[in-house]
């Protein structure tokens, strides 16, 4: 079973509306690259122009924040669950 990536609503326009996509990669960084190849434009919403994860976006591997693991070098394996969680600032006026 490949890695499963849960896509938040703001990024689903890059994945043709899919709420989850799959990948076969070995690290979170490779996953971001893989996502960009298949869903152009998505990387810019996750990473800045220096390739670092934007500070208002968090990535989790099986519920663990990669900031407390090996950041983009965090290894992933088949069956892992990856969540992309951006800050949400809305509250509906």
């Amino acid at each position, binding site marked *: 079973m490949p890695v499963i990536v849960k896509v938040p*609503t703001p990024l689903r326009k890059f994945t043709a509306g899919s709420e989850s996509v799959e990948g076969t990669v070995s690290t979170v960084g490779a996953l971001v690259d893989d996502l960009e190849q298949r869903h152009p434009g998505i990387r810019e919403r996750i990473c800045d122009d220096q390739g670092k994860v934007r500070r*208002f976006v968090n990535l989790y591997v099986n519920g663990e924040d990669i900031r407390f693991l090996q950041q983009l070098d965090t290894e992933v394996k088949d069956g892992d669950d990856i969540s992309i969680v951006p800050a*949400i600032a*809305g*509250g509906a006026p």
Partner: protein
Amino acid sequence: MPGNHGAAIVGVGGLGAPAAVALAATGARLSLFDPDRVELSNLPRQPTFGQADIGAEKARAAAERLRRAHPGLEISGHATAVDRKTGAALLAGHAVIIDATDGIDTKVLLNDLSVELGIPLVHAGVLGLDGQLMTIVPGRTACLRCLFVELPADDELPTCQQAGILGPVVGSVGLAAAREARAILAGRPAPLEDRLAILDGAALRWRQIVLQRNERCPVCA
């Protein structure tokens, strides 16, 4: 330190209105803060208002309606913004704060005030079909800045006006925020302490992520 002035609900819109309705029904003491007036477009997702309230100050109109519905309810409505000048004075003495605002600056401010004042904060956010909720207990749990160390500029995150919002989604998150606040008011641990609850409004599915305090958090460390 938290006081006994009940719950402060900052923002009486799509999140705050259902939260206020739910907490009023429990008899909780409430303070509502919102500088805006009711608009026609608010009505589909803000159950405290009807057509007759269009043009009225949201916080006061909501307080009056809830007071009529629940005689004896201690509730006040303040047509004022909670900002860096007024925030500490307005929020001091409350037992819990609900962030029902629509904007990154105020959300950051409320987090910082929560930590400064030592008052638990229920942070809620909704955009499009996504919702997020977490409860911050200063000195004990992760705060918003543990989670998002730097916050984006205004133009880096879409607002509800840009991305849209769905009434039942924002209402679900508002009611969940009320549930968190109710636990705190009752002196019990809130379920979402050190947890981020994420609502996928398209699938009507909640999931949770366990949070960690950031030892280098610029606010609460």
